[in-house]
């Protein structure tokens, strides 16, 4: 590959200045003239039928402009997940904007819009709701038992989705095993903890056309789902792309209650309506699904897998939504395809309960799978005295193997082996002591886990959108505008895409500007999710930039009197390849291309040098060719206080094959943020609900513990093994999710190595550690 001048550089994020000076581009800062403030009335009961709602008093309160109850809402059942088509048969359509039955504590039953937020809050207190309280069930195990309260008519035993995948014959495989291991692992409910709340403003005009501003990961998904739920053609709904949002992590990947409610309140009042969720509301809006994974694994003496079986019970909460997709992703990417094994089977179900709805969350079923699989491999290695790294190398897929998910592809770049070997070397894995061998009350341990297989987008997955498009337009000052639907949710998508465009055009990164956009003005893009943007949207912007450059060179060729093929762009200037004799700035070419055909001179009209007039631009809309797999290994050292049960991660090292690193600063940020979220999942985060009433007990940051800066280990190293993926933009693959998938098992394994006891249920709290040590 030729030398790169922008890709791989540590460039400043294009939004940095804006964000540190107030972040005007966050949707939470949108205000419109005449705007009303909406509020949702939420059910105190986890399961109830609404007998009657009396809004008369609320409607009379001065300042109240619109009140909404289920009877005034289209009763169209929809699924809320952005990336799957409305009518996809794999999805469960069990959502209503407002319904006469509530199925979790906090489900909205009515809404108001008023001139002031305080008036809206007061109005809620004036709404009188009569509930017929129904029996509720909060535990998925209980929910599946005969006689449990039935939450949905369409789901006997409260099973929303039932799936099974496999190949070979597992029973046969188990017969060939020297040893069979059986263990059960349980993960908890955790929240994405984005900083910017879910918030939207919806405005309507006299024709009933809607404009939506929302803190969302996907403008086209929001448009499609909102239009469907409201029974409108999508042309009536325009979603404005946020400049950036204050985090999402998968938690803003579905239609919430606020957008359709604001739309209806706006249509009713004729004014723009804004709803900003409180932190408590955010906590009960989206969470990672708790999953119980039973693993049965057959191995030979030397550690070769002969059979693998898993059964997963995923709790989806009151509605199926993401549960219907998290379940298969968890089964396939979290278990079935991770390692080579001739006989494998996975069965899983998503179970309804009267808890909050599960949502998208970075890793999307992967972390629950990896915690089970990678913990159990450690247990197997301990029992059979095998080296955990050699064990994985023995069972892992190899570069150039067929892609385990999609046989049409190969693992054209796949350096898991290098991640393991170089990571182990740099971390000094060989110095690891045997489990629990330290002395003193504080014991140290080293652990390791990997995520062998993951995605760079959703090519090959049924029922998931996967294409991107972009417009690259050159300006007379030599800059380029990139129009694209991709939302930057804080991971640096804007920086990465600008860098790819800049590299392809031959300009500096800061010469590329991300344009204002909405669903009317830019081509479709799938959401910012699934570790896909750098790879998928990256390919689209590269093609658009390439076609703009092609046009630029065609135009410039008229100035050089040379074939476009003999020209190149370097540092924003066009020249004959390899020659510095004549260089024309892009700005000049663009200006001449756009200048009037004639100028009036002293000697009469003169032709400007370029005959072929027009704006120089390039467009694209395409689906990526493949879905190459990144590979991830993580090493971590912890210290466990055996008297208090406290765990402190001391240092961590990630080794990633993510293909070419486009933005090193962004990549390191992803890794560090991934560790922080993964560590919270491993050690402390837990969205706890009252087991009697189903109300949330951890709806603020005092009671919901996330690691602060102080808990972070002093050292987190990112080792990037830069394979050069042929199908990726400048050789790039993906990074975002795996670095959050591996920390929990790596930390669990390190804790085992420190103290010699195994905790199979997250989070691994001090209490669980003391109990495992027999001290409680």
């Amino acid at each position, binding site marked *: 590959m030729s030398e790169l001048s922008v890709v791989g550089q540590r460039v400043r994020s294009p939004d940095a200045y804006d964000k540190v000076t107030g972040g005007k581009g966050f949707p939470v800062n949108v205000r419109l003239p005449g705007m009303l403030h909406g509020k949702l009335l939420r059910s105190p009961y986890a399961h109830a039928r609404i007998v009657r709602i009396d809004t008369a008093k609320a409607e009379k309160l001065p300042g109240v402009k619109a009140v909404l109850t289920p009877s005034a809402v289209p009763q169209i059942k929809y699924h809320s997940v952005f990336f799957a088509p409305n009518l996809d048969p794999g999805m469960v359509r069990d959502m209503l904007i407002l319904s006469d039955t509530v199925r979790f504590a906090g489900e909205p039953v009515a809404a108001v819009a008023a001139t002031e937020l*305080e008036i809206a809050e*007061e109005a809620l207190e004036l709404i009188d709701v009569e509930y017929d309280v129904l029996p509720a069930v909060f535990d998925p195990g209980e929910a599946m038992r005969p006689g449990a309260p039935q939450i949905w008519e369409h789901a006997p035993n409260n099973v929303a989705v039932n799936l099974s995948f496999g190949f070979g014959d597992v029973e046969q495989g188990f017969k060939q095993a020297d040893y069979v291991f059986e263990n059960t692992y349980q993960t908890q409910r955790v929240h994405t903890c984005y900083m910017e709340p879910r918030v939207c403003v919806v405005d309507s005009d006299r024709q009933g056309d809607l404009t939506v501003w929302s803190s969302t990961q996907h403008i086209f998904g929001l448009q499609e789902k909102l239009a469907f739920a409201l029974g409108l053609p999508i042309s009536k709904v325009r979603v404005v792309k946020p400049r950036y949002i204050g985090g999402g992590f998968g938690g803003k990947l579905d239609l919430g209650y606020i957008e359709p409610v604001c739309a209806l309140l706006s249509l009713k009042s004729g004014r723009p309506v804004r709803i900003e969720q409180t932190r408590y509301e955010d906590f009960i809006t989206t969470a990672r699904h708790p999953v119980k994974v039973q693993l049965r694994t057959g191995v030979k003496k030397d550690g070769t897998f002969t059979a693998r079986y898993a059964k997963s019970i995923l709790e989806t909460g009151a509605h199926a939504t993401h549960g219907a997709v998290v379940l298969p992703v968890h089964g396939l990417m979290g278990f079935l395809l991770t390692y080579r094994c001739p006989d494998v089977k996975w069965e899983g179900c998503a179970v309804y309960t009267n808890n909050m709805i599960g949502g998208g969350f970075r890793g999307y079923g992967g972390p629950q799978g990896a915690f089970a699989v990678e913990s159990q491999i450690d247990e197997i290695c301990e029992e059979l005295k095998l080296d955990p790294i050699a064990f994985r190398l023995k069972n892992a897929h190899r570069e150039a193997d067929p892609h385990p998910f999609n046989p049409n592809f190969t693992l054209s770049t796949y350096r898991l082996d290098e991640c393991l070997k170089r990571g182990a070397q740099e971390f000094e894995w060989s110095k690891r002591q045997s489990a629990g061998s330290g002395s003193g009350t504080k014991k140290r341990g080293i652990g390791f886990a990997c995520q062998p297989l993951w995605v760079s987008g959703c090519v090959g997955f049924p029922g998931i959108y996967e294409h991107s498009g972009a417009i690259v337009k050159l300006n007379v000052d030599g800059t380029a505008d990139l129009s694209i639907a991709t939302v930057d949710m804080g991971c640096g998508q804007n920086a990465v895409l600008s860098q790819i465009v800049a590299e392809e055009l031959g300009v500096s990164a800061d010469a590329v500007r991300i344009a204002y956009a909405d669903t009317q003005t830019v081509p479709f893009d799938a959401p910012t999710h699934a570790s896909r943007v750098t790879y998928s949207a990256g390919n689209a912007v590269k093609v658009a930039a390439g076609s703009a450059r092609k046009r630029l060179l065609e135009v410039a060729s008229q100035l050089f009197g040379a074939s476009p093929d003999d020209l190149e762009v370097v540092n924003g200037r066009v020249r004959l390849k390899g020659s510095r004799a004549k260089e024309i700035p892009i700005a000049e070419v663009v200006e001449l291309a756009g200048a009037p055909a004639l100028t009036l001179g002293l000697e009469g009209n003169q032709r400007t040098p370029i005959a072929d007039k027009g704006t120089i631009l390039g467009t694209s809309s395409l689906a990526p060719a493949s879905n190459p797999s990144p590979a991830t290994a993580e090493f971590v050292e912890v210290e466990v206080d055996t*008297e*208090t049960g*406290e765990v402190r991660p001391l240092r961590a090292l990630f080794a990633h094959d993510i293909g070419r690193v486009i933005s090193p600063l962004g990549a390191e940020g992803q890794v560090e943020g991934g560790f922080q979220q993964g560590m919270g999942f491993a050690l*402390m985060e837990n969205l*706890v609900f009252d087991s009697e009433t189903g109300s949330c*007990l*951890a709806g603020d*940051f*005092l*009671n919901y*513990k996330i*690691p*602060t800066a*102080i*808990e972070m280990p002093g050292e987190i190293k990112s080792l990037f093994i830069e394979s050069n993926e042929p199908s990726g933009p400048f050789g790039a693959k993906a990074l975002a999710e795996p670095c959050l998938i591996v920390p929990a098992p790596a930390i669990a394994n390190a804790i085992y190595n420190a103290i010699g006891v195994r905790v199979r249920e997250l989070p691994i*709290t*001090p*209490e669980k550690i*003391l109990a495992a040590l027999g*001290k*409680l």
Partner: protein
Amino acid sequence: MHAITYDAPRSLEQALALLRQNGPAARVFCGGTDIIIQMRAGVRRPEHLIDAKGIPELRKLSFDAKKGLCLGAAVSCIEIFESALMRQHYPGLTEAAHLIGSLQIQARASVGGNLCNGSPAADSTPALIALGAVARIASARGERKVPVDQFVTAPGRTVLEPDELLVEVHVPAPVNHSADAYLRFIPRNEMDIAVVGVGAAVTLEGERCVAARIGLGAVAPTPLLADAASKALVGSKLDARAIERAAELAVSASSPIDDMRGTAEFRRHLVGVLTRRAVGLAVERARAC
């Protein structure tokens, strides 16, 4: 929504007069890091707020080698741990102040507010109890003194009458070879409420312990003095056995509950661990000075 009045008196007399006028509807506050949150949550609904930060007596931090420490109720936690005298003479109390919230919180939060809020989990209270601190309380009717270990009467309740305010806490002067320590357990290192907190202070004469006090937080309806545990140390050489015995007695003195932060069993276990560690640390310090 309800309206409140706000006063910022410049003298103790003014403050006491305002308190007398407004009675139970009024509340004195210092940093506001408890009261404002409680008002937002609707837990407390005062109609009159009296800002104590402008009252000179409440802002005083003075130390005298003979008379000891006078710590004004409104002195902020930052002022405490930035004071070299505090760090030198009362390292345990200083640690406790430095543990409250984060730096931003410490810039406003006061030890007086921590005490008057009456939380069983207040961090600085066990440290004050260990030091034998006494609260000076004033009202328009006069003044009285209450030992800190008797100040909190139930969760969120104290001995203060509606017309009274806390002026300062007085801590006896440290004698030679005495020192204090405070340790707490929380699931993370900052921004959290204690699962257990233990303050300890010891005085040595040669090898022997001649005075000791252990204060416990978050393990009973109020912060408390672990009396028997303290007495078990006195007369001992503070060897591992004596400290273990004190730890066991501290565990018996506690009556924790199960809640989201931890089960009663876990808390009892931690009382033992932290008592051992806090006493050990205090002894180490006392031997060094």
